[in-house]
């Protein structure tokens, strides 16, 4: 749908109530796969982490990875879920070449965790309780690469390659119940919810939680219904939303698209849709009806997962601090104002700032870098800040170089770009590229004298107390020294020279 055909967002909300539902897949960071001993490793040579089990050779059988069960229980507990005493696996049958057995071993009517909830705060400061229906274990599929077409999609491709390294990687799928009442904030709520899930699984240490690597993937269900109507509207499921920003945009787009269709009296088709970040729009995928027949049945090759009460309680006792408690604690420790802290939370940067602070940065300096320059860079690259290739420790090092006067803000920003390019730590970049500020009086005096030669009246002006005149000389010196001059020292030297 073209942009001008979409319904104005405010108008859409006047006419319709928005209902969203979110399915988040979390890839676990276990050493081995869900049902075999192959390495669970991103980025290895294709088809090197494979065995008879994960490529589904005849006769092979799965065996459950206990660590994956443990991680799934932790996620369930962190989301306030009940843990099933008798969780069963089921087969979801469909033919696709990335699915080695042509069925996915998943969980159906007996998920390991169910009935939880999560408090989610949106940027306005409003808080919503998202009800969790279930969190279940399943295996990932392989990865298809379509070769020879112009689009990289299957249509028009000459042939396709399959990499089964990812086949059998353990996933936990977290499914919400329908979320009502978010109104205009539904898109923000969707993004904030996924951010919270990332925070939780990262905090639990059960996933690397990198969205750009597909460690966390979100399918967003959106439906509209006229205010006051009880029956839910027809939903669409938008896939391929690979960043928090995309989630927010995709939900907003679907609201506007569906509203425009409904206003014209056109029925919404129940289907999966694909989000295109470049176009800022969704496109129709395949029709998806509730009659999609996966012929689920209990997986006869596996016995039920029966975690003991003792084990569950042991895992519960080992859970990290609850996100809300942690937020209270760190805000107090860092001394951030409410608004400052909300920005940090909304940007999902608590972990990063905590890492920087523990590496020696002052909290305010860490906050400034993460929510300022780094957020700007990420935004310009269409990424989330936390997906930038920089550690909290490097940010601390950068902030401390500024604090110590070794570099100024402008140089620091330059250093940062080289750090992000992988040239090393901030200190290494400064040393390698000679980016330290010049506070050597000899070099500075030579530059000041050269500038004064062109502006002889400045010293007189300073003597008369018109300090703003110094600015022109400082500017000239900075320009001559390509920004590496210590501006404070230049000012001091100028005053000394005027008063001689």
């Amino acid at each position, binding site marked *: 749908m073209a942009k001008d055909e979409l319904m104005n967002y405010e108008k859409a909300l006047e006419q319709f109530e928005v209902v969203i539902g979110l399915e988040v897949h979390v890839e676990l960071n276990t050493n081995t796969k869900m049902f075999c001993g192959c390495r669970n490793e991103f980025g290895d040579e294709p088809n090197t982490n494979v065995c008879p089990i994960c490529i589904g050779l005849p006769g092979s059988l799965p*065996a459950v990875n206990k660590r994956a069960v443990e991680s799934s229980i932790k996620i369930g507990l962190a989301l306030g879920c009940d843990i099933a005493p008798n969780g069963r696996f089921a087969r979801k049958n469909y033919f696709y070449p990335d699915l080695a057995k042509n069925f996915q071993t998943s969980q159906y009517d007996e998920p390991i965790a169910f009935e939880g909830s999560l408090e989610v705060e949106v940027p306005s400061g409003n808080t919503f309780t998202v009800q969790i229906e279930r969190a279940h274990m399943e295996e990932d599929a392989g990865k298809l690469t379509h070769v020879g077409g112009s689009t990289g999609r299957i249509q028009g491709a000459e042939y396709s390659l399959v990499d089964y390294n990812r086949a059998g990687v353990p996933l936990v799928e977290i499914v919400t119940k329908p979320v009502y009442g978010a109104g205009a904030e539904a898109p923000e709520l969707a993004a904030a919810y996924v951010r919270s899930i990332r925070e939780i699984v990262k905090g639990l240490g059960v996933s690397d939680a990198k969205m750009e690597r597909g460690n966390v993937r979100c399918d967003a269900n959106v439906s509209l219904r006229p205010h006051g109507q009880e029956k839910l509207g027809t939903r669409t499921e938008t896939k391929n939303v690979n960043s928090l920003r995309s989630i927010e945009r995709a939900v907003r787009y679907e609201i506007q698209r569906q509203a425009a269709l409904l206003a014209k009296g056109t029925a919404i088709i129940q289907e999966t849709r694909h989000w295109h970040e470049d176009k800022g729009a969704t496109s129709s995928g395949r029709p998806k009806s509730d009659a999609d027949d996966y012929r689920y*049945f209990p997986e006869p090759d596996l*016995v039920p997962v029966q975690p003991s009460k003792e084990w569950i309680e042991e895992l519960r006792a080992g859970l990290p601090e609850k996100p809300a408690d942690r937020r209270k604690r760190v805000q107090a420790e860092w001394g951030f104002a409410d608004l400052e802290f909300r920005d940090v939370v909304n940007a999902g940067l608590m972990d990063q700032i905590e890492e920087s602070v523990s590496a020696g940065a002052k909290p305010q300096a860490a906050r400034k870098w993460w929510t300022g320059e780094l957020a700007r860079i990420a935004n310009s690259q269409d990424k989330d800040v936390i997906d930038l290739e920089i550690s909290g420790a490097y940010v601390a090092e950068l902030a401390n170089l500024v604090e110590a006067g070794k570099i100024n803000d402008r140089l620091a920003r330059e250093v940062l770009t080289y750090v992000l390019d992988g040239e090393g730590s901030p200190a290494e970049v400064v040393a390698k590229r000679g980016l330290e500020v010049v506070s050597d009086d000899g070099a500075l005096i030579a530059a000041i004298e050269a500038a004064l030669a062109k502006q002889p009246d400045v010293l007189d002006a300073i003597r008369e107390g018109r300090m703003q005149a110094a600015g022109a000389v400082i500017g000239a010196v900075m320009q001559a020294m390509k920004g590496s001059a210590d501006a404070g020292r230049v000012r001091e030297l100028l005053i000394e020279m005027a008063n001689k």
Partner: protein
Amino acid sequence: MSELIYKNASELAQLLSKGEISSVELTQAHLDRTAQVDGAVHSYLHVGPEAALAAAADVDRRRASGEKLHELAGLPIAVKDNLTTTDAPTTSGSKILEGWIPQYDSTVVKKLRAAGMPILGKTNLDEFAMGSSTEFSAYGPSKNPWDLERIPGGSGGGSSSVVASFQAPLAIGSDTGGSIRYPAFVTGTVGTKPTYGAVSRYGLIALASSLDQVGPVSRNVLDAALLQDVIAGHDPHDSTSLPESLGSMTEAAKKLDVKGMRIGVIKQLSGDGFQPEVSARFNESLELLKNAGAEIVEVSCPSFEYAIAAYYLILPAEASSNLAKFDSVRFGLRVTPDGAPTIERVMAATREAGFGPEVKRRIILGTYALSSGYYDAYYGAAQKVRTLIQRDFDAAFAKADVLVSPTAPATAFKFGEKLEDPLAMYLNDIATIPANLAGIPGMAIPNGMAENKMPSGIQLLAPAREDARLYQVGAALEKMHEDVWGKRMIDFAPALEVKN
């Protein structure tokens, strides 16, 4: 012609361990026999003389060097062709796997190799073990050594005929609804379906995962016991394998005592529908047991009426999913149709060409039974019947230590007789199927002949994990019959024409 091939496995094992014969000599004798008779019998899909003789020579060398070897070391064996072997093709009787050499050994084959048992070859079966006669093997049927015009039973007609024709002293079979026991019945041999989980299924090409069980095929009970002791035991690769040991079957087979044991005759598996001579032989067996001090009681299993119906829902349902992996992508046959070779078309053409009629019939049945809207009426209802059958067995075993019935309703039929009537074919398994549905162990032993000189037999059933009872009663009954006959059952079999 070596007389060795006619001896029982237990005797051969002793000759080997005493060093009176070599494994190479014994293995060669069986290979010679195969060269002479298998053109007519067609037990084997693949014979591997080189690998067998190399394994035999290795055992002889180790024995000569004084190494302590397994009790059955050097004793050659035949393996059903639905168990993976790295040194021989594994086809499961299907064109879709023609020429496939697995990348891994099944656990049972690993255990045979570890025990030093040379593998002579891979035996014929109905395609993917679906059938009662081997007529559905894609490579042609095996013949019954008692009468080459008649079927050797199925699906394991290769394994039953290979021991009945003295081409191997022992063989491995698999039993999903009677595929070990029915072939034993029609060929005058012995076969056991152990308790579900007693023997690893890892590397067994699955037919119906919740019903399949690997077991021994032999010419007498003690030999079967020796073999079950080799292949049983927990396997971490098979989640459904029992964690505990079931004890020594060999010890049980040596007791030869049934005094005071309660033998339950299943009311529903006698009388109408059973060939009169089969019933007569059955009653003679009961008389012998009674005379030996056993107590004969009648038990009723009313739910057995629904066993075949339930079985032919559960089996095809699981099989339809298990067989989905045969899609041409990673292994096996690939058929590229005329026109655009899209993945759907290649998969469809491969499965169309690679699967035979019975396999297609069951895939369609199973796909239907699992379909949304039909699941409860078919698969769900069948699972309930399964529970009822288990309860029938529980009640029966409260009254009896071992249950008995004729193994099948009638002696071996002629080729082609039931090929066009699947229901008549399915009825052969009426007495054997309940044990698979309940997961309990069952054994078939011969008990004489009908007027047409074809073997008849009796089935023994015991509670789950009580396989030892089968061997105790089976060996005792076998001895009583042999005492009456003055020779072994197999010695009644007419001599095969030997081709030199």
